């Protein structure tokens, strides 16, 4: 990566212009927040990521009450101390929450830079492994596709990312924690990886499953066949987790209010997931059963995927993030933004993925239809909840197809590589 950054080519300059353009675009959008009203969209702000709820939590804290009194705030106390003071400060003549927005823009830019750096590391590692397999002709074609830049730009210019950033949801910060963990793991920076993972888990619980790809990354490296399982580091991670959480009083209250709220799906307000409607309709008698089923569904696939994709930890992380953002209790477009950005890393490997055009079309369709259906149901009163639920269903199916097809594309790609290398070996022998 250092080699590339020292010799700035035309391509890199283009990347930086696009990055500045995206920042400018965000700033322009932030300047008209009232016209967009993104912060109240259910797609953008879930009970966990809404900045308004954070402001309420901060207000409660300021009036010497627990921020978790009442069921408004369910986020982390860390975010409260980071963003809370910024929600109160107003600058005259400028939109409220400007400072928070700037923090989110900074987080987005940092995210994209981390994605880019990780992508470049991945690409170098991939090229080296191809070299070791004597498959140079593929790596030449790869030269034209700077996957790190592509991933970073996909992340920056994804409308979902822009919506999550401008719509004042805290998901850019959650994404940043995830990205820090992956970047640290890729660069073999154990403290950074541990910190990122702990923070990500602390903020939104579901990244806990990323421990497997991170350990694989730390152990194996992006693509080196070395097997290491470091218990010592594991313990270190846990210790850090304990330390980062311990400084806040009322730990149990925090746990029940954050993780209990996530796991038991208490808030039934509509979002782009499917669980809210399911739990609004399901019979109370079966509620606990289905809660276990849906939360376990995320965990069920962890080990099969880890066994099959252990040689590609970053791709494994992408799949995990996609699955959890599909099945999590309160999904938002900020989660989709992250995994869609990751998709750019594997632009070469997944170039033969099936249904990619279909997926793109459905993405566009769902993101256009979902606000319309929500409007019909909530604001006009002419539609009903099923309309909106149908788009949520379509969105879930879309993510399922994406996961399945990308996994199968990646496996096919590996199979192709294996066939090629074995053919080469045979050629060499004969």
């Amino acid at each position, binding site marked *: 990566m250092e080699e590339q950054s020292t010799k700035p080519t035309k391509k890199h300059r283009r990347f930086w212009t696009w990055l500045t353009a995206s920042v400018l675009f965000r700033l322009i959008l932030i300047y008209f927040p009232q016209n967009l009203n993104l912060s109240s969209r259910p797609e953008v702000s879930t009970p966990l990521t809404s900045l308004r709820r954070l402001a*309420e939590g901060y207000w*409660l804290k300021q*009036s010497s009450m627990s921020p978790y009194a009442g069921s408004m705030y369910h986020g982390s106390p860390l975010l409260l101390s980071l963003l809370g003071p910024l929600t109160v400060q107003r600058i005259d003549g400028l939109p409220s929450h400007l400072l928070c927005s700037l923090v989110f823009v900074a987080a987005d830019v940092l995210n994209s830079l981390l994605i880019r750096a990780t992508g470049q590391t991945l690409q170098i590692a991939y090229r080296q492994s191809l070299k070791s397999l004597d498959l140079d002709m593929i790596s030449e074609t790869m030269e034209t596709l700077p996957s790190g830049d592509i991933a970073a730009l996909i992340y920056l210019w994804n409308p979902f990312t822009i919506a999550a950033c401008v719509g004042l949801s805290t998901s850019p910060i959650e994404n940043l924690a995830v990205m820090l963990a992956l970047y640290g793991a890729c660069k073999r920076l154990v403290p950074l990886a541990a910190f990122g993972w702990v923070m990500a888990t602390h903020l939104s619980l579901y990244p806990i499953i990323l421990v497997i790809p991170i350990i694989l990354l730390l152990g194996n490296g992006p693509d080196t066949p070395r097997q290491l399982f470091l218990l010592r580091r594991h313990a270190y991670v846990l210790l850090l987790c304990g330390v980062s959480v311990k400084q806040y009083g009322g730990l149990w209250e925090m746990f029940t209010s954050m993780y209990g709220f996530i796991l038991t799906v208490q808030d039934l307000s509509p979002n782009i997931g499917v669980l809210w409607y399911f739990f609004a*309709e*399901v019979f109370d008698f079966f509620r606990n059963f289905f809660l276990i089923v849906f939360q376990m569904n995320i965990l069920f696939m962890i080990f099969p995927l880890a066994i099959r994709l252990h040689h590609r930890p970053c791709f494994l992380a992408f799949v995990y993030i996609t699955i959890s953002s599909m099945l999590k209790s309160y999904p938002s477009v900020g989660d989709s933004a992250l995994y869609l950005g990751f998709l750019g890393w594997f632009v070469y490997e997944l170039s033969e993925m099936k249904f990619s055009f279909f997926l793109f079309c459905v993405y566009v369709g769902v993101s256009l239809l979902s606000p319309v259906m929500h409007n019909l149901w909530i*604001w006009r009163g002419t539609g009903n909840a099923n309309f909106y639920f149908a788009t949520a*269903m379509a969105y879930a199916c879309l993510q399922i197809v994406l996961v399945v097809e990308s996994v*199968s594309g990646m*496996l096919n790609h590996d199979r192709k590589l294996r066939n090629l290398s074995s053919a080469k070996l045979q050629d060499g022998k004969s």
Partner: protein
Amino acid sequence: MALLFLLLRPILLLSLFYFAPISQSQSAAGEDFSEELLLRPLPDRKVLAHFHFQSRAPHSTSNGRHHHLFPKAVSQLVQKFHVKEMELSFTQGRWNYDKWGGFDPISSNNAKPPGVELWAVFDVPHEQVDDSWKNLTHALSGLFCASINFLESSTTYSAPDWGYRPDSGSLRYGSLPREAVCTENLTPWLKLLPCRDKAGLSTLMDRPSIYKGFYHSQRLHLTSSKFEPEGGGSGIVLEQTLTLVLQPSSQRTVRSYSHETNLQPSWSLTSIFGRKVSGRCVLAKSSIVYLQLDGSLVAELDSLQKENKISSADKYISEGVRRSACFEVSVKPDRVLEELKGLEKKNPSVLYEFSVDKYNESRPFDLGLTWKVPVAWSSQKAPLHVSRFLMGSGNERGAIAVSLRSTELTDELLHTETSEGRCKLEVKVFQVVPWYIKVYFHTLQVYVNEQPQAVSDVVEKMRVSPSVDKVSPGVMEMLLKFPCGMKSAAITLDFDKGFLHIDEYPPDANQGFDIPSAIISFPNFHTSMQFLKDDSADKSAILSKFKENSAVLAYTEVFLVPLATPDFSMPYNVITITCTVCALYFGSLLNVLRRRVGEEERLEKKEKEPGLLRQLLFKLYAKISGRPLEPVESTSTSSSSSRSKLQFIILVAGIAVLWQVYYG
């Protein structure tokens, strides 16, 4: 049988009269009961009727568990749940604070929010208060045939600290705004009276005429000093009031020759209740009817009198009679009481007292008021006119706004206060919101004279307990201090609407949810009317009640919040569809992961066989379209005979289906 009853009737009556002195002697020992009725003409051509029954049981336990007059059910309630003070009200209609008065004891004590309101103070340790409350709600719901037991759930009641009543340690407050109040609630309430509605003033409670009114509030207030160590010593005091606002049925004879349309309607007990009082309840210590004329009405009458110069000749006639030139009371009052002038009142109000003791079956008491001269006046209003409304549209979010508008009274009152050098108007707001109205307390905004103000400038004290989903309601108690020159003020709070589980919606979910009234009180202003000198103050319960110094209080409107509803008919569909999608995810991902190279090669071999997939597709198409007559052209050479067989089978099946449909 009837004959026997007729024969026995005088004897029964005699025995009643014979025992009456005995009961009175017992009442001297402690227990007593008094019944009173207050009638007041209202400025908007209506009449206020306020029944007040008071039973009192002594502190002593000399009688064991038995009572002579006091209802046993209530005393058991007090004993069992250690109730120190309790108030239960059933109300239908809304008290019109502008027209019916907002600054007198009746409006601040007896104007209640629609539906059921219950509060109680318990004399138990703090941790047992909630249990006592729950038990009490069940007992009361059994006693009054109302769904008060809905107040048992912790989402419906709250524990105000200082916003509702000043001295509330173990107070619980709950209200059910949508409870319908009807005669089934009145009957058990009447059962608590010693004479029920068989004798005395309660005979006036003719169901059709009292439920026809504009406002109907039946209230039960209980004070018990039993658990205080030798405090007041008054034992249990049960106060039952029924406040009605009725429209006197217009007497056509009067209207026909009165050309003045603004002549107030004349009324009598017969015309508003359809009944007369035939004697008192013999068990009652006193049985009195009052006719109250508002202070401003009295002033208006006086000025009319002066204009007409009627009084010039009758200088020596006492005041009450002098005023009667404008109206006529059918019964001569026993006493005329004039309010002793308070500090802030300009016009004293006048009370005509009629004792029902003298009347009996043969000479029933029928009070009537006939207006001779058109007169217009207005009742004394509360310091601020209060209203609450909902802002925003859609089913996602909204805002609650409480608006306070100054009335003409405020200016007068505040002028006196400015001279004292203190120029602040204190307003206490107590608001309970159900959990599905998720209030953002940090969005509190205060507007004074339509200018936004910093919250800390106006809000003197604030206590908030935010709502917990499905556990507890949100409670807000605020003490606001406004500058006295204020014309209007408003406070707004944003909220998000919650989404409920389908079982939590009421049967008519699309009607919306009622949000209980907010309570606005003015701690600087007190209502107290003193009609008598101190020595005779305890003679009449209603007058001693009037004398009590209670803060001016107003309830806001109940408002209706529509919430978004899910589709109630869909649970099975939603469950099956969602589970299908989950299974799709699980199955297809597992399938992808499971696939191995060897298997893939086998698959590739299979795919080399020409057109197997296509063939299958055609079969499927043929099955779906159900039109076997149009055979699909196939390029594959194999298995044409099997397809023809299949076609034949489908043809037969199709014919069978058609047969079934048209001739079956």
